[in-house]
């Protein structure tokens, strides 16, 4: 029968083939194209660990990513919600291209193509990179791993919520801006993908606005600070309006993230300002929630690359920027050994010391209690449900009752000081609280090598207004870490020597 069929081709065969092409082949082909276009999940990768730290993905773009062109367009669509031009005005750090212009995206943002759209969101570096200048007229040096001392995170969050609620957050305003920036979107993107993306994003940001409403009601964090654990309560959708008011107004400085191996070995230190977790990896995954990750969407493999890099990353030396008087520093060494070493480690690279990385009861340390009170047993037990069903479910969060003694690697770049960044310089920290500055300015990246800290008495520079931190406001108290044991009763000469020695950390 088959032979016969082949010998005299029936018209039905042709018709069948045409039908097949129309009903199966063409739709299948289109389907494959669409699958390729919308089924991809491809992060932009960087071979070098350093580049990966700056621009690599944590997986946060899946859930939270902004379509690339919307990210680009928003500062122009909603300029009234930014303190100045572009994301730069929020203190995000842009590297320069060889021609001297800013790179396309700031450090601390990553890109991923997901569901047919290039997306952008923040990564670890957004909060752990900043700049230093040796003088106002000198160029900025980018320092990886230091606290993001200029980044205004509250302003960043509020910008998106305000813009999404603005009538201009619509395709009528955003699409022309995208075109203006030279996007050259193809037909599908222009007519379908981006209009839908704009609508979806608006809905999603507004849906989240309720959860972040509390942020608007907080006093300004200012650059370099975040209310970490009230933000963590949002993961669980705690009804924030009903929290005990004493849990709020708890901003804390972003930490530096160098030398993590030494915080893990030989003994695990109590990490976070209040020492509420002893596991580096768990702490990292917890922080990664801040980059938009969720348990099913986190990019474990790429987070591990960041983890590997911060294990042994080292801070730059003070002496590479400013001279250190070795003679005076040598005089400071024994003072440090006597007063500081058991709690803060033998040096900036040797973290041995009986109390290093352990929690000091609040009654002893006496610093502002709001950050401590923002972390509750209730939150700790809820955190133990995070990553349920995964081998890395959180098991180490513990409510503590004080603040942890930190190792001091790269101390000079970790100004302002104390967990809430309420004391501008090391020299000020060696004064009793009553004599520390009652108000000062944060966000300047010009360094003061004498007092050891960023310049804090300049209100604005280069068109940028700095943030006035008033230590009288809740959460900003500059008390504590004072008295004889804390070196505030040393002579002026001894203090100067101690500060000089600390420049070697």
């Amino acid at each position, binding site marked *: 029968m088959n032979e016969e069929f082949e010998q005299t081709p029936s018209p039905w065969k042709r018709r069948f083939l045409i039908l097949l092409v129309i009903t199966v082949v063409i739709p299948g082909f289109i389907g494959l194209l669409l699958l390729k276009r919308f089924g991809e999940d491809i992060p932009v990768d960087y071979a070098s660990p350093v580049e990966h730290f700056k621009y690599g993905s944590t997986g946060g773009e899946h859930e939270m990513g902004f379509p690339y062109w919307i990210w680009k367009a928003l500062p122009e669509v909603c300029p009234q919600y930014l303190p100045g031009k572009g994301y730069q005005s929020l203190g995000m750090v842009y590297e320069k291209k060889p021609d001297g212009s800013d790179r396309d995206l700031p450090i601390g943002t990553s890109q991923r193509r997901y569901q047919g759209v290039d997306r952008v969101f923040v990564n670890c570096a957004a909060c752990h990179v900043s700049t230093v200048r040796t003088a106002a007229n000198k160029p900025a040096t980018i320092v990886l791993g230091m606290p993001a001392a200029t980044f205004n995170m509250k302003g960043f969050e509020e910008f998106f919520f305000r813009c999404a609620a603005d009538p201009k957050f619509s395709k009528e305003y955003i699409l022309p801006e995208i075109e203006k920036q030279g996007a050259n979107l193809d037909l599908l993107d222009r007519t379908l993908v981006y209009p839908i993306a704009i609508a979806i994003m608006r809905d999603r940001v507004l849906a989240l606005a309720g959860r972040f409403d509390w942020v608007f009601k907080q006093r300004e964090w200012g650059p370099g600070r975040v209310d970490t654990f009230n933000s963590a309560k949002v993961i669980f959708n705690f009804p924030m309006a009903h929290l005990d008011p004493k849990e709020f107004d708890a901003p804390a400085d972003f930490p530096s993230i160098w030398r993590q191996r030494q915080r893990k070995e030989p003994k695990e230190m109590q990490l976070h300002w209040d020492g509420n977790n002893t596991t580096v990896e768990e702490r990292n995954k917890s922080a990664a929630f801040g980059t938009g990750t969720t348990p099913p969407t986190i990019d474990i493999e790429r987070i591990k690359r960041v983890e590997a890099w911060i294990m042994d990353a080292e801070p730059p030396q003070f002496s590479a920027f400013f001279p250190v008087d070795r003679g005076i520093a040598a005089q400071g060494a024994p003072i440090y050994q006597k007063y500081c070493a058991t709690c803060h480690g033998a040096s900036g690279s040797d973290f041995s010391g009986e109390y290093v990385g352990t929690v000091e009861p609040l009654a002893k340390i006496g610093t502002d209690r709001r950050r401590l009170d923002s972390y509750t047993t209730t939150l700790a037990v809820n955190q133990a449900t995070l990553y349920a069903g995964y081998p890395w479910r959180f*098991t180490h969060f513990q409510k503590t009752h004080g603040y942890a003694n930190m190792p001091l690697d790269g101390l000079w770049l970790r100004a302002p000081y104390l967990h809430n960044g309420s004391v501008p310089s090391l020299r000020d920290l060696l004064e009793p609280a009553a004599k520390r500055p009652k108000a000062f300015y944060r966000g300047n990246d010009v360094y003061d090598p004498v007092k050891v800290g960023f310049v804090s008495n300049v209100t604005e520079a280069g068109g940028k207004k700095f943030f006035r931190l008033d230590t009288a406001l809740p959460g900003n108290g500059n008390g504590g870490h004072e008295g004889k044991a804390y070196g505030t009763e040393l002579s002026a000469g001894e203090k100067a020597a101690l500060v000089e020695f600390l420049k070697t950390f």
Partner: protein
Amino acid sequence: MTTSCSCKTWLKYAALALAALAIIGGMIGYDRGFRPYPQPDWVTATPEMRFKYGSIGAENDAGVPYWIFYVLPRIFPEKLTQDGLVVPGGYASLGVSWEQGQELPIGFTQKTIGFARVANNCAVCHTTSYREKIDSNPVFVVGGSAHTTNVEGFFRYLIDCAKDPRFNADILMAEINRVTHLDWIDQLLYRFLIIPITKKRLLEREAQFAWIYRKDFPEWGRGRDDAMNLTKYFMIKAPMDDTFGPTDMPSVWNLKKYVWEKGHRMNYAGDSNDPYSVIMDSALGVLGAPPANKADFLDQVKWLKDYLSALPPPKYPFPINAARAAAGMTVFDAHCAACHASEKTGTPLPLADVGTDRGRLDSWNKGAAIKANQVVKEMGLERKGLVEEDLIGYVAPFLDGIWLKAPYLHNGSVPTLRDLLEPAARRPKLFWRGYDVYDQTKVGFVSDSPEAKRVGTRLDTASKGGSNQGHEFGTGLSASEKDALVEYLKTL
């Protein structure tokens, strides 16, 4: 001939394929829907862990599918309330004892029967949380009264969620997909079976639990339950009456002290015969249905009886003034021992003699006991059971570990031992229950500090079932005698 032959062959293959498909489908259905998996080893690593987290078989009927349980507080946070106020904190806001680092609170069990489910065991009502001071972490004592746990709040919460139109597959799946990755089989099961069935089952509870929504009854609040009405309305399906008998969750350590032959009876009103019966009946309450596996259930009850019989009462963990305690012992022997360290201890006393609130006594009766015994017997379970007699009053309790049994009296209407030694008129009329910072002076939990008011639930002693009257014994002692007596009671 050949054609018909090939047809037959095809038919045969098709039937085979269909059968294979049915078998595979059935296997998957069994595996994902019903197949029991043992709990992980850490759960049974020690007897205490088993008591806290071990399944007693409640997951079969009363279990809530794990991922639904997980996402409810994220979707419906505003439904977690106490005293009419929203309380943030997920399930922790219900005051459950929750060890830091544990996935579930104490008394919550996770077991996979086809799919992971969450249910309860005895520890949810019988673990005490206390803290030395406001900035201490809690210590959990198994076998003690769960004075912080808002059981009614938990019952209501699940029902209230199910009643909300947002309790639907779209909204729940969206939240579940934010916290875990389910494969496509589980996605389908959750969307089309588990979520709708769970909603239906929880809604069925609303009718059964009608009395916990009664506006004319006060809330149980933290640490209390209306135990005998639970039994009446669930086990014997009695029609709702107007009785209300809230009581403290009792401590269940050292159960070997109860000797039936000496006339000892259990439960506050002496309504049950022995520990084995009480444990079985309580466990049936937690199961909410006849046991799916009777042999396993009997093993569990036996294990619990053995464990709790031998479990020692906790020692007072703070300093005791030995001299004062010695003086207090004399006072105790003269004024308390006749009931609390004698033949009478563990036996019911006539209500008129003690004069405490009668709500609990009135919430149970002989007829109910006979019916309940019948129901359990029909399940094929043997036990001495509930006392089929008219009840005369409350049992004179043993005082082992009395320091941790606050608040006091069967209905927890007196916050501290020191308060109990005052005449009823001078005991606190209003205080807050379920805050776990310990008061070493008055011996009990702090009950009226600003923190206690924020964390705890309000108890008005004028409310139904909440009277602090009666047991006006030793109230005429001198202040120093009272202090000495309280010091001595710390040693028990």
